[in-house]
């Protein structure tokens, strides 16, 4: 096989262009993303927290993924935690909750600042996908990104059944707060 000088230089050119592109396509990853769960009824308030979430943000495509293991939610009362996993979330069957979508706004992730955003995509909880548009905030500071959001999840949307016996204790719509810090992926 004989290579023309031209071919080689084209290939090299392509390589460098791609190298350039990939440098722009900065991705951010975060571990220990904190998810707070809040259920409120006139009879009982229930809170739980999960610090085992992970998140990924791809700079050039504005793709964002946040996920958390259901078993990572910690309740004050362990029996409540067991019921949460066994009776409501079926975490053996559906171990993860996941949001995968795109940030609707164009953001310069290299510039410090606070940006109000909406992210549209699929929220998967209890094995059921639901298209959602979720409002949140992105804070860029010195190359690190903080994502903040608070949104509501109706149990019925995800086929999570609450028995009539305890409908006074467990809210039909659960609030979820997410707070995570993402750093540049190496």
């Amino acid at each position, binding site marked *: 096989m004989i290579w023309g000088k031209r*071919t080689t230089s084209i290939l090299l050119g392509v390589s460098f262009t*791609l190298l350039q592109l990939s440098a722009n396509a900065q991705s951010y990853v975060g571990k220990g993303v904190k998810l707070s769960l809040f259920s409120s009824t006139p009879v009982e308030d229930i809170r739980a927290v999960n610090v085992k979430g992970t998140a990924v943000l791809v700079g050039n495509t504005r793709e*964002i993924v946040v996920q958390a293991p259901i078993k990572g939610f910690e309740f004050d009362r362990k029996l409540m935690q067991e019921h949460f996993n066994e009776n409501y979330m079926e975490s053996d069957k559906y171990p993860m909750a996941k949001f995968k979508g795109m940030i609707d706004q164009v953001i310069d992730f290299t510039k410090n600042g606070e940006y109000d955003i909406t992210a549209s995509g699929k929220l998967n909880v209890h094995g059921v996908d639901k298209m959602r548009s979720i409002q949140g905030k992105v804070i860029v500071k010195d190359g690190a990104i903080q994502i903040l959001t608070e949104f509501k999840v109706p149990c019925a949307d995800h086929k999570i059944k609450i028995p009539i016996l305890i409908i006074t204790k467990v809210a039909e719509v659960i609030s979820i707060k997410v707070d995570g810090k993402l750093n540049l992926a190496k």
Partner: protein
Amino acid sequence: MKKTGLLAIVLSCFLMNAQAQKADSLLKTLDSNNGSTEVEAVFKSTRVVLSQSTETQKKHDLDLRIRHHFGDIGGRFGSSHTLYGLDVASDLFIGFDYGITDDFTVGIGRSKQDELFNFSGKYKLLKQKSDGGMPVNLTLFAQMGWIARSPFSESEFSSYANRFSYFIQPIFSRKFSSRLSLEVLPALLMRKNTTESRDPENLFSIGFAGRMKLSKRLSFVADYTLVNGLSRPTDLSQAYFNPLGVGLEIETGGHIFSLNFMNSEYILENNFIPGTKKSWQDGGVRFGFTISRNFTLFKSKNKDPDKTSKIY
């Protein structure tokens, strides 16, 4: 020249791949080191039917447990004259189990049979891990029984120590799937109040128990204890049978209702293992139920506002 060309191809392919790198693959690299977790809720309750399960009470949770065994459904003592045993209470039990830690539970209770008071301790020693690092659960159970009734004959409790019995039981269980959990319970019962000289005071037994989940809140439970013929002769003048129980267990957030059928008249290990005189044949089977209710006694010291739950 040729080499540079190849290098250029390899390089561009590599970069092309890097470009196609998706959020998902990045996520995978983050999640790869998710540690193994302990398998939870091997059984719903601390009891299966008659036998103990490997479960203990959660920390600071108090379980009030009321159990009732009715009379024979069929046979000489059953049938419509006793409304299939419902007129008779062959044993009643009221007891409390309290979780000192998530792994250590203490219990106290009282049965109608022999006016038996029981004091028990239960400790979770090994816990099954989801990654297979630990394949089974091991819980140790020990229970002392104290017979409080007056003696039937003058010689019966000639020594006061004869009123006491001691029961030791390691329990091995495994959750095979989210639906099926099985356990094996070898045990030793040391007692004094035997009626026959050939009936050993130290009684070995081995139990088998299981739970099959039918739905999220409803399970089928069963247990069988092999005791006669193991370390005890089967030709004693009083015929004894091996206890076998089956039932349904219904759980509704803090309450557990268990509806069972079994041949054992008695509720506590110290009574039903040595004393089951009824058989599943000839109508000796009876209905029984448990009502169990969990109370959280102390508010957790944990001041994390994200985790505080509040009952108004």
